[in-house]
């Protein structure tokens, strides 16, 4: 086992999938010589050539749109959108085509492709470089939406996404890219898409989180354990859509209480679906309303104010305490 940060772990997944399958190609702005602005595709062009690791012109709609064409031909494009904030430029290609091609062609064609993008705050960045847009993809039928929380699952889920017959939107937390190293097995590994993980077991309360918020939820669980003697169960969604309602509902059916944590704005956000699903699945077990700890409904706050906007441990702990005291 080697310890890798998330950037290196993702790079490993790409490398191994490209070795395994000659149909895997990479496409995006600066993914080639530069290795991507976050270096996730580092060295891949040197290894696989500029026909397989393609520095595209600066046009997101065409990155996804030509990716669709490649996928229809039978290739497995992995498209990189440089920041999730610029993926609205190709949102029509994603919604109109990527998500629909299997359906529209009634199974003749498939868009087996991955759309990778860095998302989220925590890196002192400009506007459109700090947002969390997962909700927009989660609401589109035909897509899968994955957000890993650490190097190992990032690597295993990216490999799974590349092999998946359906299109996967793959969000990578910029805050996690270099956050921590983790043991990552050298041989290829996949994790199932659509399955949440119990990151920590507990019987008193369920904390639902994903991506960079997993750490926040975990630390909140530590605080609750240490200061309140409360055993919080922490769920790491990993896949946002299709949502693993079974795991979520099972946990809340046990604990009776839940707090959902995400970086996306609160209103009409992913926490709403999770809360509604919990209510539908575990209504009679609920001891308190499901709470949402999320960013405020503000589009951009600037990094000088970012910490006051994105959920932190104190907010999660406070929400958990209110839920427990309800």
């Amino acid at each position: 086992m080697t310890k890798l940060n998330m950037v290196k772990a993702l790079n490993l997944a790409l490398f191994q999938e490209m070795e395994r399958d000659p149909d895997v190609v990479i496409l995006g702005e600066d993914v080639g010589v530069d290795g991507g602005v976050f270096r996730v595709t580092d060295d891949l062009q040197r290894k696989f050539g500029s026909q397989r690791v393609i520095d595209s012109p600066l046009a997101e709609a065409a990155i996804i749109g030509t990716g669709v064409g490649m996928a229809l031909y039978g290739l497995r494009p992995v498209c990189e959108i440089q920041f999730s904030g610029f993926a609205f430029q190709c949102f029509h290609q994603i919604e109109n085509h990527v998500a629909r091609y299997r359906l529209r062609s009634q199974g003749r064609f498939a868009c087996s492709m991955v759309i990778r993008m860095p998302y989220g705050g925590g890196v002192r960045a400009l506007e459109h470089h700090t947002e969390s847009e997962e909700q927009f993809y989660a609401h589109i039928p035909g897509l899968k939406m994955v957000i890993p929380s650490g190097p190992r699952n990032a690597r295993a889920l990216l490999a799974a996404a590349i092999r998946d017959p359906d299109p996967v939107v793959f969000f990578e937390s910029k805050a996690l890219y270099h956050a921590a190293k983790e043991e990552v097995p050298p041989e290829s590994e996949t994790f199932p898409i659509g399955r949440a993980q119990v990151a920590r077991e507990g019987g008193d309360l369920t904390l639902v989180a994903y991506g960079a918020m997993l750490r926040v939820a975990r630390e909140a669980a530590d605080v609750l354990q240490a200061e309140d003697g409360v055993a919080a169960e922490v769920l790491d969604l990993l896949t946002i859509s299709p949502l693993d309602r079974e795991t979520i509902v099972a946990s809340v059916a046990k604990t009776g209480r839940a707090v959902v944590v995400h970086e996306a704005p609160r209103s009409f956000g992913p926490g709403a679906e999770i809360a509604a699903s919990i209510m539908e699945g575990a209504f009679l077990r609920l001891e308190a309303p499901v709470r949402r700890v999320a960013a405020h409904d503000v589009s951009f706050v600037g990094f000088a104010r970012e910490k006051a906007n994105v959920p932190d441990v104190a907010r999660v702990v406070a929400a958990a305490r209110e839920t427990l005291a309800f």
Partner: protein
Amino acid sequence: MPRTVLEPRFQVEYLSILDSEGHLDAALEPKLSPDELRALYRAMILGRRLDERMVRLQRQGRLGTFAPIKGQEASQLGSVSTLRPTDWMVPSFRETAAMVWRGWPIEKLLLFFAGYVEGGQPGEGQRDLPIAVPVATQLPHAVGLAYAAQYRGEDAVVMAYFGDGATSEGDCHEALNFAGVWHVPVVFVCQNNQWAISVPLKKQTHSKTIAQKALAYGMPGIQVDGNDVLAVYAAAREAVDRARAGEGPTLIECVTYRLGVHTTADDPTKYRAEEEVKMWEQKDPLTRFTAYMRQKSLLEDGLEQQVDEEIALAVERFEATPPPDPLTMFDHLYAELPPHLVAQREELARRLREGGAPEPDAPAPTPRATPMRGQRLTRR
């Protein structure tokens, strides 16, 4: 202010071979065999007759909204006929004649416009994309297909269709630009039919031609008389051959005219003069090609009846389509149905079993007006 003029200077060519008076430029006449000419002519007649039949079906409420092609047969068939089956055809939403040429069964097209998703399914192994409704969005797909062909070392060429209005969309620009940079085998066929619904070309772009837009991408562009099937064929032949030879993409502007409504939901009298339509009717691609065929003694007796019969049989098959099973709506969304959709499917199945669900809305093949000749009621 005097300045240096950069070399090279740019120019755009115009190609016409058989004009509306029936004059032929014999030096440019493409070398098509009598069989090839007959096939092309038949397809043009079929395109025209099918279009007319579809308008009637729509008026009877048996089809939903669709976009007629009348007047654009030469643009479509002159170009698509240069492709091999192993080439790819990427349509927009107004390529009925080209799609039939490529082997789409007529009844499938009817089903499509009758609101059946089944109508969008290409045949097994057929290298045609289904109809793309959002204007210009199909063009990057064409470029991606061409890239993939090149990547795989296959010599397939991709032909992509779009309208004059489509040239305004960002996707059109991005696709042409990618094709230029990647130097991939795509032929972009713009059917400039002068109108994008109610918007005339001069409100669509300030450039004099669409062909000259190729200059922005370092790509050859040519303008052809789109009502001249021989000119369209010649230009497309050259572009396809060049693409196949690894010499990159081409933009072809076919100057043509939509003689009918934009779609069956449209009323063109609101925005264009009857005289303009009359003027273009003089340039009808069929009239011209018929004269040419007559002159070559290639006209076949009874062709129209043959074609009408083929259409009638297809309409019969279309009408014999069983009402759609609502449950199949989940079938091709994912390779494998995820749990929440299994649940939704089960719930719908339960409703259907218990009779709580509405009648499947199969207004399409069911005639709403008096049945016509050659038509029977839907089998249930």
